[in-house]
């Protein structure tokens, strides 16, 4: 299991470096997803399967999807032909593919080890719940306050645009993006 720990740790670091140095936002996000998956395996190896699963479900599976969603919209506007040629460079995509393949091999190895028995103490869902709502209750409450503030903020922004008259503000904004977007993407087509 030590090998899987160091390997996924190295993958996480390498992938995160690629996030920082990457030129294309979407490709950088893909590296970030690989990095999060690697961190999930690190958690799993350290005996925290619950945290590992939540890392994949919430970070890699939900928050990053939102990021990709937004980046897809933004990128369309800036898809200059020169940049596009950069993305077709094999150096950009071989990396995430190999790293993800390594992670996959590791996962299969863990499965081969009878569901990943670890020498360390295993922290299961129940233990996580007990400590979250026991000694760390204040932290949970603070985090929920923060989330509530974010939610109220998002709700306020959304409400404001509704009031301007049937989403006119939203339409205007995406219209601006669309004008920029149309030029280069038509050239490519």
């Amino acid at each position, binding site marked *: 299991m030590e090998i899987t720990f160091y390997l996924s740790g190295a993958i996480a670091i390498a992938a995160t470096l690629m996030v920082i140095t990457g030129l294309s936002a*979407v490709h950088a996000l893909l590296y970030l997803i690989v990095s999060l998956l690697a961190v999930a395996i690190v958690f799993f190896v350290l005996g925290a*399967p*619950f945290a590992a699963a939540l890392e994949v*479900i919430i970070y890699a599976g939900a928050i990053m999807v939102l990021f990709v969603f937004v980046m*897809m919209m933004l990128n369309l506007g800036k898809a200059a032909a020169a940049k596009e040629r950069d*993305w077709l460079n094999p150096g950009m*995509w071989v990396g995430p593919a190999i790293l993800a393949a390594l992670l996959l091999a590791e996962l299969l190895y863990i499965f081969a080890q009878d569901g990943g028995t670890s020498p360390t103490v295993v922290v*299961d869902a129940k233990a996580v719940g007990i400590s979250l709502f026991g000694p760390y209750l204040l932290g949970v409450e603070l985090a929920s306050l923060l989330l509530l503030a974010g939610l109220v903020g998002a709700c306020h922004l959304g409400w404001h645009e509704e009031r301007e008259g049937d989403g006119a503000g939203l339409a205007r904004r995406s219209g601006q993006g669309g004008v920029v977007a149309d030029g280069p993407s038509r050239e490519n*087509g």
Partner: protein
Amino acid sequence: MSELAHTWTNVVVILIFVFSFAALLSWIERRLLGVWQDRYGPNRVGPFGVLQSVADAIKLLAKEDWIPPFADKALFVLAPAVIAITTLLAFAVVPVAPGIGVVDLNIGLLFFLAMSSLGVYSIVLGGWASNNKYSLLGGFRAAAQMLSYEVFMGLSLMGVVMLAGSFNLRDIVTAQEGLWFCIPQILGLITFTVAGIAEARRLPFDLPEAENELVAGFHTEYSSMKFGLFFIGEYVGIIVISAMMVTLFFGGWLGPLLPPLMWFLLKTSIIIGFFILLRASLPRPRYDQLMAYGWKVMLPLTLFNLLITGAIVLAWGL
């Protein structure tokens, strides 16, 4: 050594079975749709047209594997592989019968949720990498739809986890001896079914590829076996969702008289048939209706279910 051999036999047999069943399912679906729409469906290749999927596979393999020059090649190639890998990995935790199953994970249920949430990248990246307006729209819809429905998909299963007291799918099945969870968790079953159809992008929730408005949505630019992988991924997804419904709500392999494996296959087939019947009978909603339905109806319903289940578990000290 013999245990290792047992594991590998399990892995290989299940993999082959799931793949061939997924391929066969394309024929079964078309035949069933034919029956329900008062026509024959494909009945020319082999007896009753059963070899239709073989013919389809040969056709797909023989077609030109075209990558549009304006596409992001790497992601374009990667996207169909992601859906096939995640759905097959999700099947790894399904407990088919005692002693049959790929892996017995303590966090099996969470692993299934994780894999189904990673599956969305396939659609989103496929749509984005195609660099085509219709594909991109399909990708957007997929991202928003799957994100919204994932939220209450996980929550709808927490009632089952409360009653069984475990994330381990085998424990969940054995906890259903006596009473299947489809009775005490009827709200959970309903919400999970809706979320499952949305996650598998089946009609009426197939807005990412809605063919009469988006050409073919996210896979407009795909041809040959890359399209085939999306196709197989979708069918494996249906099998996985059906198998999970059987495992979580219909007692998995439990049942009288027949051997456990038969019970599992029978129940799973019935639910797959139900999915196909839904496709034959329901119209597609508008996109805003879909989102509003998820957040305003389904999410409160799952929270209500959690509240009730939690209160009962607390009161009875289960």
